[in-house]
């Protein structure tokens, strides 16, 4: 089949398992973001795909061919490093032409391709500049162009935008996504920034402790998180323990929520409720009742912190539906079954 496939990939550093039995299929032309906290194994996984680290066991296949032991320089890939790794002794043009030059491409072809790529990244005329004279965003683009010079089968990026300031980063995310769609190249980006992942990816792979917790589209990851780690890591959420009695009547903090079902046989579970799904009502009108402890008015959104039982629940509302509440006030919390996501244990 065409695309990238990881099969039971394990990487151990001594006794430490950096990547633990990872299976993943990336169809040709997809944009995948590997997301997770630092130390979750996402960079190690990317480095194994690049051949910069060798898996302890398992296999990596590209378009059906086993490339697990193929040395990096024979994999024909393009990679953007976190440090960008632009060669300081070469000019912008020489950096971009590097992979063509060492493959012995004719000088004219190199020049033509460099011009093509420079115009693609909106830096035409920069070929003879030293890389040290570029701004952060320009260096970023040169690194991307350099990786794409040979039209690689795989485009790998390791935290590529982490050195940029917030505004530039957001602009580059959009640019990178548009570029990938135009070229239709299989792309894997490692990031710890969930906004970045949500912006760019077809598939978000959430990793933790060397394992894949969930691999799905951004919206599914957000709306249907597989477990409490994913729910908590992606966006803000309220995690609440619920119990079910023998007749499968579920109670949240001791209050019954009609219509909510747990998987058969489960007496206890955790549910995730996104703050924007929490609606405040008059005291007694909702399923739960609590006391407002803090109101954070961010202009665009308003976060209300409510203490109900021993739990803190956050509700987010827009100014349009501004809840008229103040600290110390009693409020009701409405819970409908459709907003409660029951998480896998």
């Amino acid at each position, binding site marked *: 089949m065409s695309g990238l496939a990881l099969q039971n990939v394990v990487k151990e550093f001594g006794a430490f398992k950096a990547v633990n039995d990872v299976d993943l299929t990336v169809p040709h032309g997809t944009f995948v973001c590997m997301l997770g906290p630092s130390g979750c194994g996402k960079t190690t996984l990317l480095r194994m795909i*690049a*051949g*910069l680290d060798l898996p302890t066991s398992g296999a990596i296949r590209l378009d059906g061919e086993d490339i697990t032991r193929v*040395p*990096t*320089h*024979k*994999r*024909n*890939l*393009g*990679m953007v*490093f*976190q*440090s960008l*790794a632009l*060669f*300081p*002794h070469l000019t912008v043009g020489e950096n971009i032409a*590097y*992979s063509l*030059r*060492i*493959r012995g491409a004719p000088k004219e072809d190199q020049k033509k391709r460099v011009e093509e790529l420079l115009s693609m990244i909106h830096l035409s005329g920069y070929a003879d500049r030293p890389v040290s004279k570029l701004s952060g965003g320009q260096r970023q683009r040169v690194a991307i162009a*350099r*990786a794409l*010079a*040979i039209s690689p089968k795989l485009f*790998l990026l390791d935290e590529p935008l982490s050195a940029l300031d917030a505004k530039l980063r957001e602009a580059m995310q959009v640019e990178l996504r548009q570029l990938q769609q135009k070229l239709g190249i299989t792309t894997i980006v490692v990031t710890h920034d969930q906004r970045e992942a949500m912006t760019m990816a077809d598939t978000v792979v959430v990793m933790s402790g060397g394992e894949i917790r969930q691999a799905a589209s951004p919206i599914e990851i957000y709306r249907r998180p597989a477990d409490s780690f994913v729910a908590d890591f992606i966006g803000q959420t309220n995690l609440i323990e619920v119990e079910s009695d023998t007749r499968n009547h579920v109670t949240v903090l001791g209050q019954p929520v009609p219509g909510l079902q747990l998987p058969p046989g489960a007496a206890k579970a955790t549910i995730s409720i996104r703050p924007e799904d929490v609606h405040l009502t008059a005291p007694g009108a909702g399923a739960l009742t609590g006391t407002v402890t803090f109101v954070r008015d961010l202009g665009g959104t308003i976060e209300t912190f409510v203490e109900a039982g021993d739990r803190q629940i956050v509700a987010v509302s827009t100014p349009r539906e501004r809840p008229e509440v103040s600290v110390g006030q009693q409020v009701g919390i409405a819970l409908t079954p459709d907003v409660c996501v029951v998480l896998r244990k």
Partner: protein
Amino acid sequence: MTSVYQKLYFFLIGLFLALPLIVVAGVSVNQKQTLAFPPEGFSTSWYGEIFLNPEWRNALFASVTLALLSAALAVAIALPLAWFLWRRVAPWANIFQLLGVAPFTLPPVITALGLLTFWATAGFYGQPWTAVVSHAIFFVTLPLVTLSLGFTSIDRSLVEAAATMGADERTIFRTVVLPLILPYIVSGYAFAFVLSLNEYIVAYMTVGFTMETLPIKIFNALRYGYTPTMASVTVLFVSTAAVIFGLVARFGDLPKLLGAMASDQK
């Protein structure tokens, strides 16, 4: 107030360092062959003497040849070693790093005596090429230290990037590592060259009876009395060293070379 004291302190240190050289420079332009300061008359003929007098000229030629060759050999030993230590995980190979630094750390007499007994035992005592090898071993520390420092300053992701773009080990060395390490090769060579030019004891113990380098020539001349050519050679040596180190500073990062890892860690 503080800055006045500071200036005075730096002035006195500077005076201490410069005074012998000033006096020697003054002596070197004496008109007659006398050791007098302030100089009596003015003449640059003692500088001409270095090149015109065959004895001094031969010594100059011997010294420069020795320094050029031994510095090149020192770099040839240090470069593959430093590269290997940077590229591979081989803790046991650090023993060679230690061996490379030892000749310079131990009192020079020890290295000199070791080489003297060795060349004598091997039956090559007095051959000019033994001085080249001896100096290369004695000064290998300098290129080894500058090159090790140079390698640690190369971002390893540059090598990885070259590999992802299709470069094999040899190509990476030629197109990425070598251009980046070149300034450190030059500095290491320059350090070894200048020190070899000035070195006395190792040269004296290995080839002192068959060949005269400038320091040996000065020392031998000193035992039979004074000639102003010594002074002019001294001035020539100090200025050569200053020019070469000045060039290293101009084209390299001297405070970094000497401040070692400091600037990397920031």
